[in-house]
């Protein structure tokens, strides 16, 4: 039942926020903060209670896979269940959702002044939907949450966004975001249904259950098409380069909290979907597709980095760096070694922290300067109190400085993938140089260089300071002691790796097939 509450709490909290608006502006903020704090506390409680350690290789039975499970019949006609389950991977990502949720509420404390209640309703419903995505292992339920979380995000961008630069309105950006993700989601629905009907043809029973569908025998061609259905849906959200068109606009026009959610959590749902569904459901097809996926990842790394260098808008720059970082994630996922997969989780968490940090900082800059155009900034180092210092730290994290969690993640991804695809890794490493360039460019243009004006601006207040300090502490904590995270997700990643490499041996040495 705890799992159900994890999903319900944000939804109920959101409704309360909406209704509490009549009590004044502060009430919804405190309620939202309390709600997300509660989610975070419950998750941390589960973390300390549950035993997440390296699994016993002899006991790899199905029952031991989930540390918590909850199921109830929903639509018996098609064997659809409300089936929630928690393992190390989902636990980490839910904890991340809770933490970034708290940050998102905090960073809009002063930014959002209109329709506060309705804003927090949308914010909390996004987070509720994301938690649902991380918990659902019935494919119908997964799709349900996957599509559902788009609606509040749409409102968040369309109603509280900035009508930004060059005539691009926030409504266009929001609509673009919605159509991209919804249309690709429908492809996933088609793929899910294709899988279900193959299963039905084999067994005579409808089922959307992850465990049932995983063992569906598929012909190679069909498996490839169905896998592509899933992949495209996830690739749009991740985003992978030819399908990334919505991301810069959405980020640039979204309010800070929206950007934090988008970069920190929503992009992670795509990587999670690949790890949880695309790879385990279609291991052979994924294995065959891996070279293409890695190539796309490489393109993403360079494309994102190069375009980031040319941006004038701070938030667009950070958005393009996200594309670049997600390229590493994609390579790691499709390399499929244990080290690379662990690195992917690490990098996801690290990127969530660093991107959230940078977005919050640019939100704070905007609150003080009322512009996000870097051409109008410069020389802010001495004028803003501790803000530039924090910027430097997060920029360093973003470029993968040793000591930060990003370094550990990128290093593990590259190291783990080297055995599988040495040339891809060698090329991707060159992308790290570009990362250094765009990161330093950001720092140089915003905080150094000639000043526009000498009047000191307001420094960080206590709320802002502790937000940044907390984020920075986490970046350093996981950078210096990553084992904390790795232990938790190890079992889940080992399972993915087992399936994936089993498919590999099946392809290369067909008759023996020992996994």
């Amino acid at each position, binding site marked *: 039942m705890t799992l159900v509450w994890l999903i319900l709490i944000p939804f109920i909290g959101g409704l309360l926020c909406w209704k509490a608006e009549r009590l004044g502006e502060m009430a919804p903020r405190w309620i939202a903060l309390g709600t997300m704090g509660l989610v975070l506390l419950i998750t941390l409680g589960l973390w300390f209670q549950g035993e997440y350690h390296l699994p016993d290789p002899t006991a790899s039975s199905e029952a031991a896979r989930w540390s918590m499970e909850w199921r109830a019949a929903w639509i018996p006609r098609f064997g659809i269940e409300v089936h929630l389950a928690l393992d190390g991977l989902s636990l980490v990502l839910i904890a991340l959702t809770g933490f970034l949720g708290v940050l998102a509420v905090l960073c809009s404390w002063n930014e959002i002044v209109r329709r506060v209640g309705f804003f927090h309703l949308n914010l909390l419903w996004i987070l509720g939907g994301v938690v649902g995505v991380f918990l659902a292992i019935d494919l119908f339920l997964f799709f*349900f949450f996957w599509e559902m979380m788009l609606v509040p995000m749409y409102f968040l961008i369309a109603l509280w966004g900035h009508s930004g630069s060059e005539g691009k309105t926030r409504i266009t950006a929001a609509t673009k975001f919605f159509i991209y993700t919804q249309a690709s989601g429908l492809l996933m629905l088609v793929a899910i249904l294709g899988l279900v009907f193959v299963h039905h043809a084999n067994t005579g029973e409808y089922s959307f259950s992850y465990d049932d569908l995983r063992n569906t025998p598929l012909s190679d061609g069909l498996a490839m098409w169905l896998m592509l259905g899933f992949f495209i849906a996830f690739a749009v959200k991740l985003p992978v380069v030819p399908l990334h068109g919505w991301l810069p606009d959405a980020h640039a026009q979204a309010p800070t909290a929206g950007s934090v959610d988008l970069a920190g959590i929503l992009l992670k749902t795509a990587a999670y979907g690949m790890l949880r569904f695309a790879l385990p459901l279609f291991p052979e097809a994924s294995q065959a597709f891996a070279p293409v996926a890695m190539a796309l990842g490489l393109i993403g790394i360079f494309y994102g980095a190069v375009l980031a260098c040319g941006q004038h808008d701070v938030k667009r720059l950070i958005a393009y760096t996200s594309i670049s970082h997600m390229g590493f994630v994609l390579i790691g996922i499709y390399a499929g070694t244990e080290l690379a997969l662990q690195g992917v989780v690490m990098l996801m968490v690290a990127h969530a922290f660093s991107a959230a940090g940078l977005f919050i900082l640019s939100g704070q800059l905007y609150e003080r300067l009322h512009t996000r155009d870097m051409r109008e900034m410069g020389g802010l180092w001495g004028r803003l109190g501790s803000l530039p210092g924090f910027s430097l730290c997060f920029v360093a994290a973003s470029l993968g400085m040793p000591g930060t969690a990003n370094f550990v993640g990128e290093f593990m991804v590259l190291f783990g993938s080297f055995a599988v695809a040495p040339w891809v890794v060698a090329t991707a490493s060159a992308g790290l140089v570009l990362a250094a360039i765009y990161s330093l460019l950001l720092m140089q243009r915003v905080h150094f260089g000639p000043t526009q004006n000498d009047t000191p601006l307001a420094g960080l207040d206590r709320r802002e300071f502790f937000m940044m300090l907390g984020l920075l502490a986490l970046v350093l904590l996981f950078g210096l002691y990553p084992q904390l995270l790795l232990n938790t997700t190890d079992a889940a990643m080992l399972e993915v790796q087992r399936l994936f490499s089993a498919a590999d041996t099946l392809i290369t040495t067909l008759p023996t097939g020992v996994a």
Partner: protein
Amino acid sequence: MTLTLTHLVALLPLILVCVTAIVVMLGIAWRRHHSGTAFATVVGLNLALFSLLIVWQVAPLETPLLAVDGLAMFAAVLILVSSLACATLAHAYLEHYQGPREEFYLLLLCAAAGGLVLSASQHLATLFFGLELLSMPLYGMLAYTFHERRSLEAGIKYLVLSAGGTAFLLFGMALLYAQTGRLDLAGLSAGLVQGAGAWGVAGAGLMLVGLGFKLSVVPFHLWTPDVYEGGPGPAAMFLASASKVAVFVVLLRLVLSAPAFQDAWLHDVLAALALLTMLVGNLLALTQSNLKRLLGYSSIAHFGYLLVALVVSDGLAAETGAVYLITYLITTLGAFGVVTLLSSPYGGSDAAGLHHYRGLFWRRPYLTAVLTVTMLSLAGIPFTAGFIGKFYIIALGVEAGRWWLVGGIVVGSAIGLYYYLRVMVTLYLVEPGMQSRDAPHDWGIRAGGVVVLGLALLVVLLGIYPAPMIDWVRAMGTLTS
């Protein structure tokens, strides 16, 4: 055959609706009273709805002209529910109308009776009779506020084009009769079982044109936006809901029973029409700035999706068609309900321009929530009934391996999102300075408001927990004779 008491019981809903129509007519002749007439209408429709519980005991049952089976009862429930919603909202709408108000209910009842006959017909005579009984009052309803130029135009446009459609239908029937010498559906299918022959296929095709006109299938859709825009809210609502349901059900019955409609060539034509309808409907809706026109195009697109059920016509098809009809119906009723409430009391043309809806949320949050929910449902977003319907249609297409149609649905939905979102976001934008049309302050506690809120609640409930709806549809499906 002799008419027994059981037959009378089986026809009870139809009889009750007709009796109500006569009572209303006599009542108007005796003394005009708007609320009284509306009340009598609602009571009669409710009685007919409850009498279905009794009919349930005796079904399935056949008379030479009408079949009281699961499909007919299913359609009867939908038609009666939508007539009820129309009657309730018409009361709010016509409250301040200057002309005679009571006849609207009379027309509504006649049309409802026509719908009941049509959906239960298993003889070409009742099919034609039902269709005309359904359409004739609609001309009157659409042109009811005839002081408005657009309303009159809508009525006359529908009259003329509908007559054209009917001519096609009749010609098709004549050809089928020439081929087989029979007019009842069972006889037709028996006569066509050795192969339809050229006349048979031509006849079936022409009937398809006639019925396709009523369903506004592309390329017979040209009347739809104008009629939806011009007709008064409740009339457009009836046209979009009850009328379409009845015609679709009879088409489903034809396709499921008569082999001439299962002809491979006709099937391909039907599939092409479905694809064309969903794409054209969605594309044309993109640039609309009038909510009623937009809903008209959106209903064209939705019937494109529904045609997939006819194209596949086995396996899950009947169930899919039924589920989609339910979800479409309650959603459309909800959307038109909001438009009608905002346009009531009657004050010239309806509040249909999108600019009337700008910033509505900050004045009427609950009414906006209803419209948002219905828009999301039309777009097929989870948590709404529309998603369940879309899920069914895609499942059907995937099961049958009709990849072109599945592709059409995906593309159509993606295009559709654009204009549904446009409507939605308009509701939440900053209020304009000028005074917009508004619903009465106490709309939420009035009958019309309650109906609309109930519909929105139903949309959400069925979206979250559709199992009862699916069970009910399947129970109806087993009641075939």
